């Protein structure tokens, strides 16, 4: 996964910052314990968010304890641990998705990236096998997603169809967090739009490179190589996805981490969009009129 789903830290209270880090570190520890030491290399912000979402939907006891960083034993950190599946499930998602992404990189990229991906794959094989054994469904959903995505991209799909496989994967994963039928539906819708948002953010991120290398990118079809117009369009598409995501999010009953998750949804998402769409292209091209491009009054 890509690390777009993050909190906007300046708006987080210190206490919530500590809690967020504790989940990240707790997930790292859980990965190492469940799937092997190397699996913590796959740790990402997105899986931390998944873990927090899972934990927030349940009342199961969850503790934050003082501990030492497993990577740097000289450093103290806070570690979140819990009864139940949240951390080991999210860890499995992390390992399995990384594994499949590496396979994708091996098929699509230039020589150096291919070689690096191949090496990493061998490195992570044992970890992947352990995760797959514990959660075979995650592996099944993920391979299905990769296949459908490759298919869609090969056939020059539109935005909706291209984003659909990733969206469906996250939807299925989120849906499994709750046994309650109504909540499952809400989680399915929420997960769908989160997956869609992540996929589209990644597509937006790769836009310039894809134009240059003539790779598939769902955003190119509308405005071709006109980056300015395409960025404006990207933002609209992302906004609409985020609006739907928020509507589903507001129906969830969260027992914990609400402040952090609220921050991610209401502050983190717009901030990431801004970073990607405004800052990067503004810095690179120094086109000040990218601001008016995002102005409603145009």
């Amino acid at each position: 996964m890509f690390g777009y789903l993050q909190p906007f830290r300046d708006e987080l209270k210190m206490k919530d910052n500590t809690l967020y880090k504790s989940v990240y570190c707790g997930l790292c520890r859980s990965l190492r314990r469940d799937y092997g030491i190397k699996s913590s290399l796959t740790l990402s912000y997105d899986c931390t968010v998944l873990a927090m979402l899972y934990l927030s939907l349940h009342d199961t006891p969850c503790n934050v304890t003082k501990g030492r960083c497993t990577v740097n034993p000289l450093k103290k950190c806070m570690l979140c641990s819990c009864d139940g599946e949240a951390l080991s499930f999210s860890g499995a998602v992390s390992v399995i998705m990384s594994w499949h992404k590496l396979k994708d990189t091996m098929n699509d990229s230039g020589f150096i990236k291919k070689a690096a991906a191949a090496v990493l794959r061998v490195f992570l094989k044992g970890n992947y096998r352990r995760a797959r054994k514990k959660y075979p469904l995650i592996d099944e959903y993920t391979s299905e997603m990769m296949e459908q995505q490759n298919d869609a991209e090969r056939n020059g799909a539109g935005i909706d169809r291209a984003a659909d496989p990733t969206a469906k994967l996250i939807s299925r994963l989120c849906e499994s967090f709750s046994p309650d039928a109504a909540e499952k539906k809400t989680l399915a819708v929420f997960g769908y739009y989160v997956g869609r948002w992540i996929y589209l953010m990644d597509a937006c991120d790769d836009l310039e490179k894809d134009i240059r290398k003539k790779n598939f990118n769902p955003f190119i079809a509308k405005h071709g190589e006109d980056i300015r117009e395409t960025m404006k369009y990207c933002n609209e598409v992302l906004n609409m996805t985020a609006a739907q995501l928020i509507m589903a999010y507001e129906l969830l009953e969260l027992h914990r981490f609400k402040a952090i998750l609220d921050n991610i949804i209401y502050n983190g998402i717009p901030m990431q969009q801004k970073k990607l769409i405004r800052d990067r292209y503004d810095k690179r091209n120094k086109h000040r009129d990218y601001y008016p491009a995002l102005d409603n009054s145009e």
Partner: protein
Amino acid sequence: MSDPYKVLGISPHASDDEVKQAYRALAKKYHPDRYGESGLASQAAEKMKEINEAYDRIMKQRKEGIPYIPEDTYSCPYNNYSNNTAYTNNNYSGSQSYQSSSSSRDYTAIYRMINEGRLSEAEQILNGYSPTERDAEWYYLMGTISYSKGWLEEAFNYASTACHMAPHVDKYRALYERIVQQRSGTQGGYVTTRGGAADCCDCISCLICTDCLCNCGRCS
């Protein structure tokens, strides 16, 4: 049903207008029509039902003059107490005028004052009652006021007297039990007998303040 003020996202001391505003904003947000296309209309309808119930409950309580007592929060001392200058000046002339010639037991005004956060005024009036006029409800109201002020020992004493005098009345017992539960430490502080697991947020505040329970790795 959970705390209706929490459901609407407002303070218990919000004015009636503020309650209505909050209700309207939430009704707009969770209107099932807005959710029609996404397929979550029934979930939105459930949420709307909760919001409607919360609004109805608040308005009913206010109409009947039932005071609001927070269910799971600690009482907030000094909150509403410092406003009454008559009290801070130790000026009891107000209380004399309230010493009712008729021993009216109509506490409706007291309930209203408590709901509006005018605790010192309410207390002044109650203190004007002579010892023979102090019935169980008087003790219950004094208990409520003390609790809101943060005078928890006093609240405990008043509440237990109210329960003693009128053991059949549910709301006196409810106040008493809430206070007793807080004294047990299960909602904060040290639990002498090993009880339920701390929520991780409780744990964080525990860690920061006391460096306590959680060195063991598992504190449930």
